[in-house]
């Protein structure tokens, strides 16, 4: 009886300690977000370059034949809040954030939330599907390679994936575009959808979107796959050296069973971590792929915002990316606590 009671108490103690651990992690994340907010605000402003010159076409790169008069400039600077001291701008930024407002883009002339909302789904669709596909294929091939260690199969896979890694993404994308679209008409040359399908039914549009997605996803999958393959292969090889695997073999278990039931679950932890962190960066888009395929996304928005020093957009996109990385990190922490018995909470 007392043994049962002790067991229950032990479980309760563990649950509480896990809860307080998660609370602690939550506080850490809050602190991290505060630092990120400060950095998001400061970094764009520390860059040389006056955002007003891009907004109005003044200064040494002006494409206009006449200069702006000081009165108009003062009115416009005040309108954009660029005449305020940084501290005031920072409080304004924070007060907007508290109200769920990411600000209004100076240069792009639209609410930042709207700019992000128009692009984030495309980026997530592209990057998440590529990473998931690359992870599945990479893990499968990594396991296969480790299984066939030292054989021609292993060497062949190793060589193919390393060669893939050596090809720059933009070159790979251009090759795919050239052969699978330009010369063979198999896939569209650019965009996320056909203009001609704008008024069609959702099923036709879905097919159209998938058709447009194929080449960008293939490019990004091929670019991402090697990291997953190498990580899985390495982790699997380490795991396969463990005593418990030797013991399982000695017990006469089937090789396939050893691989998938005993080795893979343990080998997967570092791979899952890498995938989760990579997924967190999905909100940042993939600039090369977006540029080659004329695909809408966050990468190009961030690059354009940087070029024209649109602070509001930079702040908003950095914040979304950071929050996504943190959120996935937090999820990972949760998974580790509950799924990996080796993670001890003190």
């Amino acid at each position, binding site marked *: 009886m007392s043994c049962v009671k002790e067991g229950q108490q032990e479980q309760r103690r563990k649950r509480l300690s896990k809860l307080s651990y998660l609370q602690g992690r939550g506080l850490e994340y809050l602190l991290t977000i505060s630092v990120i907010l400060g950095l998001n605000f400061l970094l764009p402003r520390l860059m040389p370059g006056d955002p007003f010159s891009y907004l109005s076409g003044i200064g040494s790169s*002006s*494409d206009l034949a006449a200069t702006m008069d000081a*009165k*108009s400039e003062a009115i416009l600077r005040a309108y954009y809040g660029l005449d305020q001291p940084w501290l005031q701008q920072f409080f304004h930024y924070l007060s907007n954030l508290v109200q769920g407002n990411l600000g209004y883009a100076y240069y792009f002339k639209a609410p930042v939330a709207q700019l992000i909302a128009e692009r984030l789904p495309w980026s997530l669709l592209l990057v998440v599907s590529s990473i998931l*596909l690359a992870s599945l294929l990479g893990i499968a091939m990594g396991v296969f390679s480790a299984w066939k260690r030292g054989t021609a199969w292993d060497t062949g896979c190793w060589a193919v994936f390393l060669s893939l890694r050596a090809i720059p993404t933009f070159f790979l994308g251009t090759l795919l*575009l050239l052969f699978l679209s*330009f010369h063979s008409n198999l896939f569209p040359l650019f965009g996320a959808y056909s203009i001609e399908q704008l008024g069609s039914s959702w099923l036709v549009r879905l097919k159209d979107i998938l058709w447009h997605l*194929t080449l960008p996803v293939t490019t990004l999958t091929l670019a991402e796959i090697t990291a997953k393959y190498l990580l899985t292969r390495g982790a699997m090889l380490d795991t396969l050296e463990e005593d418990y695997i030797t013991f399982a073999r000695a017990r006469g278990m089937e090789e396939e069973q050893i691989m998938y039931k005993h080795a893979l679950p343990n080998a997967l932890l570092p791979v899952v971590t890498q995938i989760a962190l990579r997924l967190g960066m999905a909100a940042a888009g993939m600039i090369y792929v977006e*540029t080659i395929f004329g695909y809408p996304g966050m990468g190009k928005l961030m690059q354009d915002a940087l070029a024209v020093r649109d602070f509001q957009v930079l702040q908003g996109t950095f914040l979304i990316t950071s929050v996504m990385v943190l959120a996935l990190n937090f999820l990972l922490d949760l998974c580790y606590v509950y799924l990996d018995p080796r993670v001890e909470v003190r």
Partner: protein
Amino acid sequence: MKKLLGVVVVCFFLLSILAYLLLPQSQTTGAAVDVFKIAGEDYGYPSPYTFYPRGPGYCRMMLIFDTLVWKDKTGIIPWLGSSYQVSQDGRQWSFQIDPQAKWHDGKSVTADDVQFTFEYISKHPHPWFNRETGVIEKVEAKGKKQVVFYLKRPYAPFLTNIAGTIPIMPRHIWEKVADPLKYTDSKAVIGSGPFRLVKYDKSSALYIFQANPSYFKGQVKVNKLIFLQPGQPLMALQKGEIDAFAPNVDQAAILEKNANLKVVEGSGFWIYRLLFNLEQKPFNQVEFRQAMAYALNLPELVMRAMHNGATPGSPGYVSPDLREWYNPEISKYPHNPNKAKEILDSLGYKDNNRDGIREMPDGKKLSFEMIAFNQGQEAEVVKNMLKAVGIEIKIRALDKGAHDSLIANQQYEIALNGHGGIGGDPVFLNQLVANPKSKNHSNDMYKNPEYVKLANQQVKITNPAERKKVVDEMQVILAQDLPTIPLYYRKMYFAYQPGKVDDWFFTPGGIASGIPTELNKLVFLKR
């Protein structure tokens, strides 16, 4: 696990193949005769206050809106103002509004709309349109169809830079708009122009314009004009997925070999030039700047850095492409390294220690830092050409923002800078001197009193022949003084599939206040 993996991979590829099988024709059949597709980037919502402050943004907005006058291949032509007159003293400009002109919502364009536009712009500063409107004392509508501008003083660029640049906005829509810089309602694109906007997708840089069936200047040739952003426009044009795009010089060379395509060329009215800190020795010496000019081989620079996609710079600043305002009778500096060396010797800048770099009499080396933004080979070519005469250049490559910031604060010895704004009316020559009304004096180091006097004079002379004399004289002074050395003027190209719209041309001097473009609305009109 294996099964799941297999299912996901197979599903993805099956879906892709299914999508391909079901939709292969949708791309190729879309381009009907009444559709014209041009590749381009996002330049903002094409409304007067929300287009991005770049030439292409203005051009798209001007497909929807109209100005009082416009430009064709020959020069200024009447537009919304079907006729106009100027008073003897050059201070009153009177326009008759075309009686056929209508807004897209069916209401007539009136003189009152013109008066409203200028009053609205003065109340709500616009990054572009306010620049020269300070010269207007008042605008008065006289009846429904006549409007008169009263100027504070005669202003020569009035017709091109004000009447030919500022889009007329409908009072019945804009009078209720308090914050025009955030006005992106569908009513913000109700204009009087040849096209209406039917779709704008910022994230895909997609614009779909529909022809205005009752355009007062005639029938619009293209039913649907689409701007979209392919990642590889060169491939897209060759494959027929777009009808036109503006290639760079290397792409133009490839496309020119394609018998099924046509390429037109024009001036970009974009100058790449050397700037000096004119208050620092030896840049404060005219002879030193002239020696530098002799040391530079501009045709070779154009060939090596621009693959001949530019016109070599004229020391008088004005591009030869700006035909009527260009003065060929100015000091010239053909490549002559020996002459450059002679001048440097005569100034006492000699290479006494034989290390290949000359020294000033006080022993200081002729070694300078040159700031440049990350673009092309120009900086390297200039560096090597100057090194050949004993001037050492250390290149400091910067991102554009940092580069512009240093120039604005005059924190440089030599700068390589590129910009537009050298087309249209020669009022741009006044940018080289300080503007007392502006906060920004990026080029305000040129203080030759004679030049400043002529700059003030030229904008007041309304007689073109008399003005030309003054503008010629300004170029003579610039070529002699060389406060800046123009290296080249970039060319522009436009490639298209013939058979749909064939009258493409680059408007001489650029449209409006000098914006170089092939996108003149006249191209789309049956005339």
